[in-house]
């Protein structure tokens, strides 16, 4: 009885709030859970700089999304789970009226928010990190591991290596060197499956956080003498690994890093040692992308740029932030098509938009983001939408893309997500949505 009265009350309050919002000029609010200080502050500055710059860009260039001005508020999480939750709770009420997807840029925070976002009906995007089995949207309605996941990335890297070896990995030796955390451990299942399928030998070697000492691991790699090292590092661990590889004389062009081990922040400090090092990426670096050049012109020209240090424009993480914002804005556009153009969208509506994203190459060209990120098409049972990456190589001064879009082995990897999501649903005692009815 009490509960009913409460929900009636909340409904009344939210209706009151909604009508209030309708009276004011339409505004689309974005809660931005950013981090610009703390251990990963440097990475956060580039990413969130790009993210916020694109929001400003849409405001300046097109006067918002179909006329709906974008507003945002930042809250510093320091990459810390507790602070992330505090920020989320602080912005929740504001986000109840209209909200863009949340990008926590932290696997830990995204895990902690998974249940909360469902209860509060706020969509969360985890572009290239976070809970990967959320690909199965029937169990995770509000979580979107957009573009691609660790497992699909690992699988795509194997495919790249296979092509490099002219289609055969049989009898090859591959070492998986990883950050010993949720982030580093997730691809192991995928790699094991790939090893079975392609008959290569897989050795996994963990590196304890933060990974600034890897002597023992690289000694082991020297003993194993593998054909390739697939490398899942983060932060200071990346440059350490590259330097350690040089020390033992392991050729850097036989190391392929994940997309968190492939930014300028990783290679520049390693100096000459990084030359030839490869990494995966789901977005390209550089200012050649028309959109990035235009953002610099429009946003920084108007003096509304978010970055203090403009040399970061066009770096891999900056462009990743822009890509994440592009996805968010496109989701809101999609939602507006269904729920009314020129209106602010609620979390529930944006969620629908994210689940029905269809960003073709033609659309990417329209916004000037050709080749910045792959084509994306999401659905209820595929919250990932792409699963494609490119491989880039560091030439000593910049990242050079050395492959086209490579897709991971979906038939092999997606059933793993399905199984994991089912286990989650069972542990939580919940019934998944029926995706057939969502069409």
């Amino acid at each position, binding site marked *: 009885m009490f509960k009913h009265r409460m929900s009636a009350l909340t409904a009344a309050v939210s209706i009151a709030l909604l009508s209030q919002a309708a009276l004011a000029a339409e505004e689309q609010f974005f809660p931005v859970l*950013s981090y*610009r*200080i703390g251990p990963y*502050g440097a990475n956060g*500055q580039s990413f969130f700089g790009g993210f916020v710059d694109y929001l400003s860009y849409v405001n300046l260039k097109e006067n918002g999304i179909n006329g709906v001005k974008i507003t945002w508020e*930042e*809250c*510093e999480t*320091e990459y810390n*789970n*507790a*602070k992330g*939750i*505090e920020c*989320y*709770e*602080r912005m*929740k*009420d504001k986000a109840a009226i209209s909200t863009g997807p949340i990008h926590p840029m932290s*696997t*830990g925070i995204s*895990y*902690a928010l*998974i*249940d*909360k976002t469902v*209860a509060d009906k706020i969509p969360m995007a985890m572009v290239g990190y976070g*809970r*990967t089995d959320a690909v199965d949207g029937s169990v995770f309605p509000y979580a979107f591991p957009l573009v691609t996941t660790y497992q699909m990335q690992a699988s795509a890297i194997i495919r790249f290596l296979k092509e490099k070896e002219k289609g055969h990995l049989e009898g090859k030796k591959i070492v998986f060197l990883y950050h*010993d*955390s*949720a*982030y580093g*451990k*997730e691809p*192991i*299942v995928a790699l094991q499956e790939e090893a079975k399928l392609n008959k290569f030998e897989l050795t996994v070697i*963990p590196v*304890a*956080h933060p990974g600034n000492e890897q002597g023992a691991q690289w000694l082991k790699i020297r003993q194993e003498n593998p054909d390739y090292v697939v490398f899942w590092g983060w932060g200071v661990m990346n440059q350490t690994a590259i330097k350690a590889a040089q020390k033992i004389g392991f050729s850097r062009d036989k190391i392929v890093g994940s997309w968190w081990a492939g930014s300028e922040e990783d290679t520049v400090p390693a100096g000459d040692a990084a030359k030839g090092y490869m990494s995966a990426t789901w977005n390209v670096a550089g200012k050649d992308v028309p959109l990035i050049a235009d953002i610099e012109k429009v946003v920084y020209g108007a003096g509304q740029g978010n970055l*203090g240090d403009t040399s970061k424009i066009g770096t891999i993480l900056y462009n990743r932030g822009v890509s994440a914002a592009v996805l968010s804005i496109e989701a809101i556009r999609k939602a507006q098509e269904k729920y009314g153009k020129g209106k602010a969208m609620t979390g529930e509506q944006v969620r629908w938009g994210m689940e029905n994203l269809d960003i073709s190459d033609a659309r990417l060209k329209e916004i000037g983001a050709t080749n910045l990120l792959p084509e994306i098409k999401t659905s209820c049972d595929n919250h990932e939408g792409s699963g494609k990456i490119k491989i880039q190589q560091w030439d000593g001064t910049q990242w050079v893309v050395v492959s086209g879009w490579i897709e991971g082995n979906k038939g092999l990897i997606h059933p*793993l997500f399905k199984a*994991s999501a089912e*286990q*989650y649903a069972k*542990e*939580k*005692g919940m019934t998944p949505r029926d995706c057939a009815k969502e069409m």
Partner: protein
Amino acid sequence: MLYREAGQFKTSYAADQQLFPIRQDRIGILILLAVVFLVIPGVAGDYWFSAILIPFLIFSLAALGLNILTGYAGQLSLGSAAFMAVGAYAAYNFQLRIDGIPILVSFVCAGLTAAGIGILFGLPSLWIKGFYLAVATLAAQFFIVWCLTKFPWLSNYSSSGVISTQPLIIFGHAFTSPQEKYLLVLTIVAVMALAAKNMVRSSTGRAWMAVRDMDVAASVIGIRLMPVKLLAFAVSSFYCGVAGALYAFCYLGSVEPDGFSLDMSFRILFMIIIGGVGSILGSFLGAAFILLLPVFLDIALPWAARLLGLPFSSATVSHIQVLVFGALIMFFLIVEPHGLARLWQITKEKLRLWPFPH
């Protein structure tokens, strides 16, 4: 005047030995309990429950656990976060593997598991003391986190090592709203805090304090060091373990071993140093200081910057917040090295004399 115990005569041993011997304290604590149980649930919003009150209570409990070990028994420990991790993972596994086990029972079992492991890592305390013991407990910190990462069974073979906690159902009622979770956490913390208060004035507590003040003298007067020290480790780890279980089930909802880092152990240690070593109240004050002050600064500083028209970016504000927080810690430690609890004690003494200080 306000706080004078004149006229309160104790006519029996029971009256003399009760938990709060002074009448004003008894009334105070009753009012406090009434406010936190009856008033706050009605007035606070979701933000207050989920972001402020629940973590505050959970960390108070962890700090209380460490305070029992460090403040009362004098054994320095840097493994509190690890014992919280044991509690969190144990509660998860009890829920997972034993069908139909009530959640409160798994919390208790989680505490007992943590206590068992605490005893194990308390063994070195029989031979080494002080800073050297702190280093030995550091081993617990690293070993336990390593263990939870190393053995996938503990996280039910989750590919990422992250566990998602089961729903909280007690007597058929599901605790889902932040308000209900708050009440659950509050009840557990209140009961355990009063139990701790009771314990430290008992013979056990007095034995701990004797060992803390001088263990040779304590053993000379007939206190057996081994059981006393190990009991301190057990009780302390029990508290931390329950705090860890609450942290996982009522606060975050999903935890990974790396979340229980050394950094967290240090924070808990700072809580008791700031709050007051060897004080139950101090654990709460310290947790409030370490957890709530940054949040307050986070909200107040941008507001102040806007008010003064200073063009601060959000990164600058965050940096300033860290600076101010650090400066305040130093300020309080210089002004009152015995912690915030000591300030409260001084206030009480002043109130006793007020309005006629000599």
